[in-house]
């Protein structure tokens, strides 16, 4: 061990569904170097202290979105958060807030996956198009309208940040609404009206009380809060103007 090896205390929220009645904290003393991420700290614990410690990761470069956890109470990607920034204080890592814990730092994302499916996250063309008509053309402006909302990596940090999702797990939530908005804003798509039924429903945008923390924690600058707020306006318009339009958004 080199002399510049420092030690940091990592407090980990442990939960084993088969033997624990509730989650509890355990502390580990982890030697680290300045280039070590919190994820590597967890890996060190798994390799050296307790092989049963369970957490998700894949890319280690803030791309895959699987390593999210609460780090000192703030939802963060553990692969891009560094131990050196917390030393000499103790660091606490916990499963993402507002989700059911499956084991240790792994949460159950099935509800989130269902929400992603429910927004119809694919282009639904306005009208059938034949091969002869060729490809869709998009202007840079049309591209800019949605590109920001394509950057989401489904890390669900925004759900862990959202107090309204914490209070009502049925709320479709920031990332799903941002993705919904991404398709609505795409000039090739024609299903905004169909998606309005969900946007305007009791599970929809009006659960949001404009806290904005989702956009603060988002590692990809998707700004889901903005997507939610734009869709509040859209849903309010739809609510009051639906009687004027022949089709209306939903009942």
């Amino acid at each position: 061990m080199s002399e510049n090896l420092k030690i940091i205390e990592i407090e980990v929220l442990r939960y084993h569904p088969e033997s624990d009645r509730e989650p509890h904290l355990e502390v580990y003393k982890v030697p680290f170097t300045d280039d070590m991420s919190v994820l590597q700290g967890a890996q060190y614990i798994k390799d050296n202290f307790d092989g049963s410690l369970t957490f998700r990761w894949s890319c280690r470069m803030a791309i895959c979105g699987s390593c999210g956890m609460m780090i000192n109470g703030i939802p963060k990607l553990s692969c891009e958060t560094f131990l050196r920034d917390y030393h000499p204080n103790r660091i606490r890592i916990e499963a993402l807030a507002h989700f059911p814990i499956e084991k240790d730092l792994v949460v159950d994302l099935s509800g989130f996956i269902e929400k992603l499916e429910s927004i119809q996250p694919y282009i639904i063309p306005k009208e059938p198009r034949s091969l002869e008509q060729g490809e869709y053309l998009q202007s840079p402006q049309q591209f800019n309208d949605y590109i920001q909302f394509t950057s989401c990596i489904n890390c669900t940090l925004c759900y862990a940040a959202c107090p309204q999702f914490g209070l009502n797990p049925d709320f479709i939530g920031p990332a799903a609404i941002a993705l919904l908005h991404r398709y609505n804003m795409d000039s090739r798509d024609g299903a905004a009206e169909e998606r309005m039924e969900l946007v305007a429903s009791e599970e929809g945008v009006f659960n949001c009380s404009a806290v904005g923390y989702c956009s603060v924690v988002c590692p990809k600058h998707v700004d889901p809060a903005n997507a939610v707020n734009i869709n509040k306006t859209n849903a309010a318009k739809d609510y009051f103007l639906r009687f004027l339009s022949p089709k209306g958004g939903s009942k």
Partner: protein
Amino acid sequence: MKSGLKRSNAPIFWGLFGAGGMFSALFGPMLVFITGIAVPLGLMLPANTMSYAKMMAFAQNIIGKGFILAVIALFLWFAAHRIFHSLHEIGIHAGVGAKLLCYGSAFIATVISAVVLLSLGF
């Protein structure tokens, strides 16, 4: 798409909340200054700015009535919505009861102010 989705009627309350929020941001501080500080302390404004006769004339003018109603009603709808959601946020999920109390009081106050303003005549 999920089935059995129920349309939320939040746009009504959210609309009133939004209108009230904007209105109170635009006029609230100025009104507090005029009615609460400048006039009582006799600062900057003529002493009879809010005399009974002037205020009565204001309340009898159709635009004046509209302004007074908007100040009272929209401020209240704004507050009702904010209080309702804050209750929810601090963990008081009184549901229908809290909703009735918050929005109900805004509604009653709106009706009372409209009636009083109309009864002042034109």
